[in-house]
């Protein structure tokens, strides 16, 4: 199954309101320091970058390391400036790339 994302953005906000954005994505975040039952090292497989753009302008970015738990959860804030789209992107090892969007109406 493809990576599953769960985004929580308030669907409506007042102009200038500070809103919280919560994001979850399914990913093993294999840290690269473990071994399998046969003693073979398990290769690192993590998400390395997360970004959020608000109507095309980048408003938030995170660089993730192996110490982030599986199924990364990240929350942050932004000011609701105008109606439109928040676009989220996660990229990582082995060409991993996943996108998600959320709409917001600003009154």
């Amino acid at each position, binding site marked *: 199954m493809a990576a599953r994302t769960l985004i929580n953005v308030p669907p409506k906000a007042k102009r200038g309101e500070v809103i919280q954005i919560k994001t979850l994505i399914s990913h093993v975040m294999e840290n690269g320091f473990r071994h399998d039952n046969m003693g073979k090292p398990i290769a690192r497989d993590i998400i390395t970058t997360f970004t959020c753009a608000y109507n095309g302008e980048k*408003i938030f970015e995170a660089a993730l390391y192996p110490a*982030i738990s599986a199924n990364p959860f990240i*929350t*942050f*804030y*932004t*000011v609701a400036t105008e109606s439109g789209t928040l676009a989220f992107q996660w990229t990582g090892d082995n060409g991993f790339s996943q996108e998600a969007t959320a709409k917001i109406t600003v009154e």
Partner: protein
Amino acid sequence: MTDPASRMNTTRRAFLAVAGAALLVRPAKATPASMAAAIRQAVGEAHVKPGRIKLNVPPLVENGNVVAVSVSVESPMTEKDYVKTIHIFTEKNPQPNVISFQLNARAGKAEVQTRIRLADTQTVVAICEMSDGSCWSDKVDVVLTLSACLEDPI
């Protein structure tokens, strides 16, 4: 120039260095020194002062695989005065970097949450860099309690 003999020597020397290090500390583990180096890499030579940033980690953790963490910074978050970056580091994880956030004035509020892995009882450090270049830090000593009834890796 790498003839097989010198390559073997290099490998052997490297192996001995690693083996020697392993006697002192467990392999693949960050140290306070490597954390300090990671901090320097993140914020340069700026003087890091305590204050303005608050790291919230439970002092006693039930399971080190998933530890809820939040970081908040006192800042007006205006174009003139905002938080540029927030970093989290650990002393004894396999590597010191945990996560680095880049914010801008549009955030409105400098507060982030995530979930991190802690390999051992250790100190967790959060550092922020403001738009004026000043850097602030907070740290929490976290005790990892021992879990019963774990499973073998599958």
